[in-house]
């Protein structure tokens, strides 16, 4: 069962090949056997999952099942789930039981899916390797000495290892697409505003976006159908109709115009990664697409702009973790300032503190215009680059990451870690959607092809990705770990 896609599992449930309870038990068992080595889960909600599975089976028996009823999945521990610990990978929230469900969680639950638990992540979604989790690093199932990518590394590793058929992630600067690439799965970051952020613990509000991570683009289409849409509880979610993303998956690609941003193929790109990406582009040409080089001239400003805007928002968003109302509180505070400083010093990890300090600095009087205001101007230029490019081409393609997954502990310098997101970050600054699909291997580790579209072009991205997956089988390859450890 674990080598099947969500689409295949849904068909099997429908035909009665097995029940949701059997399916859920199967994955729970795999988690129990294998996750000790992977560390991809923070919390497993076995009992609750089995109850939900039984309810799903009853629903199906009564003839009330919808497309995904009875499908197990996992949620990044950034989604608030009622009655379940929601830690966001932080000691700060190690004791936090959310009293409500995120809109995404509510929608998935209403669609009849089953949550097996909460997946590991970089603390407060800050990181590109999943080494910043209070609950320890996640390991890449393709090579346990490699990182799974961050910050949705737990979700990516769990799907890749076949511990769950799909998982939800969030992407602020590449946190769905980069781990999807590192773990050889498909991950979609929708347009900013396509999926409600309500109940997702905020890192950088103007960049955060939730999206599905699964084995195939088709699976992602099914999941996006469920989670997309306007939410009155999130003012930045867009009131715009949600198409059926599965309906256009098989549209032919002849005439598709692909742009290759020259800035995505420059210095620092691993040659094997480049080869895999260029080979993938050739597949598209064989499917009738035309290819041309385009330029996104402000690309090299994306990382500096991101590391002004994201920490600025984060420094404000994380102010609420002060030990007063919930979360970690230091022992026996002497006074108010002691309560604040020690609770925060003890509760936050190094990377989170670093970004809070950066953000506090860039927003402070005398620096605001030089940093924040400037970064917002750069952001507009970056967005305009994309809009200009989409005047000429339908989609952009390039690598999701300059290298395949690197070794755990390999990147000690924060800036070299920040550069991992060089191809993904601009997408969040522009608010456009992007998807990473498996497209080969480099040094035995997966390579992700990143496909970008204009705002609300998710249907097109999924179509383009699905057609590639119809023509290739990279997305069906499972790591040896998936077979050996469960």
């Amino acid at each position, binding site marked *: 069962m674990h080598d099947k896609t969500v689409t295949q599992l849904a068909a099997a449930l429908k035909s009665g090949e097995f029940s949701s309870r059997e399916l859920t038990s199967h994955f729970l068992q795999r988690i129990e056997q294998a996750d000790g080595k992977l560390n991809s889960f923070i919390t497993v909600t076995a009992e609750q999952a089995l109850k939900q599975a039984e309810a799903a089976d009853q629903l199906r028996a009564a003839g009330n099942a919808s497309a995904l009823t009875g499908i197990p999945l996992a949620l990044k521990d950034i989604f608030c789930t009622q009655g379940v610990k*929601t830690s966001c990978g932080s000691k700060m929230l190690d004791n936090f039981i*959310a009293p*409500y469900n995120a809109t995404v969680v509510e929608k998935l639950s209403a669609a009849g899916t089953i949550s097996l638990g909460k997946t590991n992540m970089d603390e407060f979604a800050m990181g590109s390797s999943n080494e910043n989790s209070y609950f320890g690093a996640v390991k890449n199932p393709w090579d346990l000495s490699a990182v799974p990518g961050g910050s949705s590394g737990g979700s990516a590793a769990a799907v890749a290892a076949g511990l769950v058929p799909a998982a939800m992630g969030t992407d602020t600067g590449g946190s769905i697409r980069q781990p999807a690439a590192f773990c050889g799965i498909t991950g979609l970051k929708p347009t900013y505003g396509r999926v409600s952020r309500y109940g997702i*613990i905020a890192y950088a509000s103007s960049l955060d976006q939730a999206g599905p991570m699964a084995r195939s683009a088709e699976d992602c289409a099914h999941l996006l159908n469920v989670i997309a849409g306007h939410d009155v509880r999130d*003012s*930045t979610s867009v009131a715009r109709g949600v198409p059926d993303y599965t309906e256009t998956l098989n549209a032919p690609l002849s005439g598709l115009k692909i742009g290759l941003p020259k800035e995505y193929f420059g210095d620092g790109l691993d040659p094997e990664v480049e080869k895999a990406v260029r080979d993938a582009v050739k597949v598209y040409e064989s499917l009738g697409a035309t290819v041309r080089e385009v330029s996104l001239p402000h690309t090299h400003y994306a990382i500096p702009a991101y590391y002004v805007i994201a920490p600025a928002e984060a420094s*404000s968003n994380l102010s*609420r973790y002060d030990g007063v109302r919930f979360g970690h509180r230091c022992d026996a505070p002497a006074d108010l300032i002691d309560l604040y400083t020690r609770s925060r010093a003890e509760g936050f990890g190094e990377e989170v503190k670093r970004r809070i300090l950066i953000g506090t600095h860039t*927003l402070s009087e005398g620096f*605001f215009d030089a940093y924040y205001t400037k970064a917002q101007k750069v952001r507009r230029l970056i967005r305009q680059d994309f809009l200009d490019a989409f005047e000429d081409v339908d989609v952009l393609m390039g690598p999701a990451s300059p290298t395949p997954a690197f070794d755990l502990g390999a990147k000690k310098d924060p800036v070299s870690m920040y550069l991992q997101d060089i191809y993904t970050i601009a997408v969040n600054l522009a608010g456009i959607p992007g998807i990473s699909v498996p497209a080969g291997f480099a040094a035995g580790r997966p390579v992700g092809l990143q496909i970008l579209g204009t705002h609300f072009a998710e249907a097109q991205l999924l179509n383009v990705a699905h057609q590639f997956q119809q023509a290739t089988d990279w997305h069906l390859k499972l790591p040896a770990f998936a077979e050996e450890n469960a």
Partner: protein
Amino acid sequence: MQWETVIGLEVHVQLATRSKIFSGASTAFGAEPNTQACAVDLGLPGVLPVLNEQAVAMAVQFGLAIHADIPEVSVFDRKNYFYPDLPKGYQTSQMYHPIVGAGEVEITLDDNTTKCIRIHHAHLEEDAGKSLHEDFHGMTGIDLNRAGTPLLEIVSEPDMRNAKEAAAYLKAIHSIVTYLGISDGNMAEGSMRCDVNVSVRPKGQEAFGTRAEIKNVNSFRFVERAIAFEVERQIELIEDGGTVVQETRLFDPERDETRSMRTKEEANDYRYFPCPDLLPVVLDQAYLEHLRSQLPELPADKRARFQTELGLSAYDASVLSASREMAEFFEEVHRVCGDAKQAANWVQGELAGALNRESLSIQNSPISAQQLGGLISRVLDDTINGKAAKQVFQALWNGQGSSADEVIEAKGLKQVTDTGAIEAMIDQVIAESPAQVAQYRDSEPEKRGKMIGYFVGQVMKASRGTANPQQVNGVLKAKLDALL
């Protein structure tokens, strides 16, 4: 040296929305701590704000009422600082693009002249919670019921020159917001409070002196007293060779003084930046016109109309237009009796006196505008005389009867205007007062006028106050003079 005082006010008005500015929780006052705070107000992880449209409409109405520019786009910003009763670690406010731009407010001074105070801008923001220091030994309790309550902060230009002007300005704002119905204006419950910026400078000097900000003054009287104290403090300080430091001060009404709270050096860096969770507020002309069409008549317009159309004095017009309730009461009395001057006299005289004595507001007046109007009508048509009118008023005030007519009937207060009946009473009084008649007759003619008062009193007494005094006077004089 001659000193000039410069005063600017930041008035915080709590808007009378049903729910909070960014959540659906109730804004009602006085509930048990933390029973009116939802996940959004508590700042729980993952929650997001959703702007209350009613708060926007109220802010815009205020802007229209003060003839302000209403920018097409306004933006919410985050003001970042740590405080236990500030759940998110920031207050959502408007720093760079407020919802209401420059406008002006007319104030009325004691001598009934008016002055224009410019408004710099007004912006929307959320209130914080409340720290409770009592009942918790060595600890502080936090009540977040107030967190997220919508506030409109109205920032004036430094246009006021003395404490009286500042108080008049605060009253004018109070009057506008209550007229609009966008706030209950209840200062005791904190629905309106203000920060006062005060500085002094030598008369004739253009540059402002260093200002002190007095925080959270919550009554008209305290505003006057805090300013009076602060002005005196600053002048004495400078005259003694010291300098005023820019600082935040607190007014202590018990001791009637201001005290330093924090100096500029200790001031926070609020790190304002646009709130990424909220979209800019975009208002189109049609929306503004819609709100404009719903504006009630405002105090300044009412005051002008009372003078020009109803012929009231500047003073009467000003007093009667000061509050919406007072104005509406007066207008109803006027509608019923048809005489503006009489209506004004009664509302400001008998009624205001009675309300004052019992510390009642006009909303709680035991006598209704219809009743008072009916009473005045009966005076105007000579059904009762002034003396009886006061009795009727008292009876209505005490709830003895539903209308003036009913009271007049029940108490037999109808004025006797029948000449025959009056003559009979006069004849009887003259017959029963031979000594007084003799005295009258023997008096110097110029003193007789005074003496007639005795006879009038006797006749009125005999009529139990119902005789028409003018008539009694005339007939008496004729009859007594006939005896000379």
